[in-house]
């Protein structure tokens, strides 16, 4: 996460009535805390797991990933915003200037979404590089044609799957029919793991 995101998190935590905030991924792993975080990190960890399950469940039922959930208790309030592959949780006191929170949130969510987009683009570059490494490792000097297939593919998973299939066919026909299947399988495993 970028420094800008940390600044945003700290701005949130500085609002009157906010006790802390954190960003978590879809597995419920906390990626970033605000400073200060007045709620114990143990609670944060348990909360992140529950909230990740909640977001996943509700997204599945409703079909929308961009959800906002506001949980109000007599003792406090939790504001949850779904972001790509995770969420942002803000722990608040019951008495809170909600309008001020919303203004800060609106700016910050834009930043978070941009930051996620940058991460995604970095990830897809890394993914192609790792696929190329597999080709080089298995085919040595004959890997060039597979590498050029991978480089000319797009960056999303579907395009890469097609490229792997092409690479497998090409390897089977022109390079080594025994290695083709194993190489393609390793590439597919990597693609699956990076989703």
């Amino acid at each position, binding site marked *: 996460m970028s420094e800008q995101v940390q600044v945003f998190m700290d701005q949130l935590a500085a609002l009157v009535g906010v006790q802390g905030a954190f960003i978590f991924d879809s597995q419920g792993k906390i990626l970033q805390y605000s400073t200060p975080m007045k709620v114990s990190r143990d609670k944060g960890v348990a*909360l992140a797991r*529950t909230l990740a399950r909640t977001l996943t469940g509700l997204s599945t039922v409703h079909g929308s990933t961009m959800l*906002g959930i506001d949980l109000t*208790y007599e*003792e406090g309030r939790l504001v949850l915003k779904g972001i790509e592959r995770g969420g942002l949780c803000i722990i608040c006191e019951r008495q809170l200037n909600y309008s001020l929170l919303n203004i800060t949130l609106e700016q910050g969510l834009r930043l978070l979404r941009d930051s996620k987009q940058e991460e995604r683009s970095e990830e897809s570059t890394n993914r192609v590089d790792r696929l190329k490494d597999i080709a080089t490792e298995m085919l040595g000097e004959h890997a060039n044609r597979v590498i050029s297939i991978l480089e000319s593919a797009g960056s999303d998973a579907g395009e890469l799957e097609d490229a792997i299939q092409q690479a497998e066919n090409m390897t089977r026909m022109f390079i080594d029919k025994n290695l083709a299947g194993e190489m393609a399988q390793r590439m597919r495993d990597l693609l699956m793991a990076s989703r």
Partner: protein
Amino acid sequence: MDDFDSGQWDALFAGDEDTRVVRAAGTASETFSVEEFCEVPGVKGAIRVALDGALQAHSLAESPEQAAAITTYLGASARQVGATMGYRNFDHAVLNFDSGGDPVLVFRQGSSFVGLLLEEDIAPSHIISRIRERSGGGE
């Protein structure tokens, strides 16, 4: 809604035996049914589900199963979050969709969760106030 004391909220959102909402502030004999919730301006539909997700009553023309799943999921998650945080008194939860769509207001009613489908531009706190006023527990 913050000036509403906890006893009144408990009364409003604690259910009686026949799973109808008990009216607040000592008027416990008066209750709200799903149809009565729909009479509150800004409420487009209402659903009541058991804590285990079983659909008990609804006034929705479309997709009651989806609304039941959302209501149950949100209510159950709210309880779990409350337990984690040490919050014992759940008031209500609101689910909004950034992509557009009607917000859903969920609260506990005895051994059920009630889900209200709201008009998009209405503040959930406004609906809660209206329910409170109608139940005779208003300011």
